[in-house]
């Protein structure tokens, strides 16, 4: 196990280097750079622009710039956001709590909805309950979040006026009221994202449970004289959830990486909207840092998923 972990971590290093190189080259080849707007600004003389470009090494060969970036990154210097005029790491750390709160809650909601519905639907396949659950799951993942998001804003913010449609981090309230405001403004993004995720989880859990429920060892459990609810929980669900755990673990990077579309709709100041605004402003250091952090998380959670899998399923050994 220790060896396995060490080997996986060592293998992760070249893949992360590869990912970062590709990201860097792509960004460098893309048209525009952080100083693009300076060129059209008449207040800045060309010499100053040129001096800045030289200072930041903008015209060095790509590989040299990549090596500079890599050395700085390893030393903990994530770069400087030209658009926001702060260090990138400060910027990311500012945004992460909001994303964790909103997207994390949405994931919890998705699981809380999908688990019971998926299991119940699979234990009564083709029943009325199953058909209703399937229909809603189908509708759920057919409707994109930008549609349901706007629909909810229209109903609950514009027409009814119950919920705010702009997410704010500077709430001027104290004590319970502060918590209440925070919950209120998270309701819509969490619902939109959570139900969208729940729809696909439900389908997945249903089919995983259906695969297991007809196996002989489930019949064995019934033949032992175990009552049905225990058969389902102990013998069916525990085995069916092994692949689901992997699926959920691989969704975890999005909890940190944010939901780009949903965050944009509700103006949630999370990582997703940071990435979008950085792209629009040609703020390459931020784009690079966010996408690279995202890549690290994907690699990390892949590893966690594999370890969980081995822990849950004794048939898998770490070699």
């Amino acid at each position: 196990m220790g060896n396995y972990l060490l080997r996986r971590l060592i293998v992760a290093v070249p893949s992360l280097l590869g990912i970062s190189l590709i990201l860097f080259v792509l960004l460098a080849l893309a048209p525009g750079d952080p100083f693009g707007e300076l060129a059209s600004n008449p207040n800045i003389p060309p010499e100053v622009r040129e001096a800045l470009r030289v200072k930041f090494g903008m015209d060095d060969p790509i590989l040299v710039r990549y090596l500079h970036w890599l050395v700085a990154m390893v030393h903990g210097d994530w770069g400087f956001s030209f658009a926001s005029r702060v260090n990138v790491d400060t910027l990311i750390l500012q945004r992460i709590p909001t994303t964790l709160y909103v997207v994390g809650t949405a994931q919890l909601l998705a699981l809380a909805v999908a688990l019971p519905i998926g299991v119940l639907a699979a234990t009564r396949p083709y029943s009325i309950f199953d058909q209703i659950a399937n229909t809603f799951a189908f509708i759920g993942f057919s409707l994109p979040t930008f549609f349901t998001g706007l629909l909810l804003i229209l109903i609950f913010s514009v027409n009814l006026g119950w919920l705010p449609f702009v997410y704010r981090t500077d709430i001027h309230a104290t004590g319970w009221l502060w918590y209440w405001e925070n919950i209120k403004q998270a309701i819509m993004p969490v619902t939109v994202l959570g139900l969208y995720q729940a729809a696909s989880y439900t389908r997945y859990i249903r089919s995983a449970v259906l695969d297991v429920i007809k196996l002989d060892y489930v019949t064995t459990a019934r033949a032992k004289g175990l009552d049905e609810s225990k058969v389902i929980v102990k013998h069916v669900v525990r085995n069916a959830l092994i692949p689901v755990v992997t699926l959920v673990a691989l969704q975890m990077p999005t909890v940190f990486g944010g939901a780009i579309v949903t965050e944009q709709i509700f103006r949630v100041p999370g990582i997703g909207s940071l990435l979008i605004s950085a792209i629009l402003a040609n703020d390459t250091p931020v784009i690079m840092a966010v996408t690279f952090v995202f890549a690290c998380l994907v690699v990390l959670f892949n590893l966690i998923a594999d370890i969980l899998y081995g822990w849950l399923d004794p048939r898998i050994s770490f070699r």
Partner: protein
Amino acid sequence: MSALAATDATAPQPLLSVRDLTKAFPIRGGLLKREIGSVRAVDGVNFEIGPSETFGLVGESGCGKSTTGRCVLRLIEPSSGELRFEGKDVMSLSGDRLRALRRDIQIIFQDPYASLNPRMTVGAIIGEALTIHGLATSRPQYEARIVHLLETVGLQADHMTRYPHEFSGGQRQRIGIARALAVEPKLIICDEPVSALDVSIQAQVINLLEDLQQRFGIAYLFVAHDLSVVEHISRRVAVMYLGRIVETAASRQLYSTPKHPYTEALLSAVPIPDPSVKRKRIRLKGEVPSPINPPSGCHFHSRCPLAKDICSTEVPKLKESAPGHLVACHFR
């Protein structure tokens, strides 16, 4: 225990009696998923099993023998019929009383790879039944029972902490047997218990089952398609064809003087391990008809060499043609 093993099969009260057992699986189709037909997997089956007797049930794939076995435990809910275990009506049981029945009747499955929960240790698999039925009051007693059961089926105490995937097919089937034995059942349904095993392992498992019967006086309902295995282990044998029993007799009698034309054909297909022996093979025409739409009258008439007009109109009753030898044929 040994006194029980000596009880005769013809004791007044049978351990299990099955009367007119029927199981029909509905077929749904069309826009509204209405029932448009049914598969009569088990179609009016009658038999009795005495204490510590082995009753063999043979037939081709799909003839309803496994369904019959599962209906007895009500793992599959029978459509109609009467099931009595030690005189008690099994069909009317529900909830806790039905689960209590599963202390007395156990089942061993065909596929030892699928019938053990891969996430539970062998100890937990065997021990679960002990816990359900309150057969162990303390942790040391619980563990001692599991060790004893493992040793009874020829496994070792230290196998307790291992997982099923670490064992071979034969060992897994032993685990399945230990699990069934845990609750000290009076009847074990053996649903093709050796069909998935190598021939050498088959013999070991069969010998183990016979040994356990001697020691604990357990009765078996032995479902199989391998005629020689059934002949070896069973005291009485029933032959099934398309959901019905066509012949029942003492094992030796059935194999030496089969009466039903289907049994004759089936037995003539058993290979004899001697190439110099010549014998007449009875070859049946065609395939087994679909149980969705079985032939009228005697189900076998469409392939029977003896068939006459009466066979397609009248269902032959299972009647005694010699002492203890029942056959469902108009002409035998």
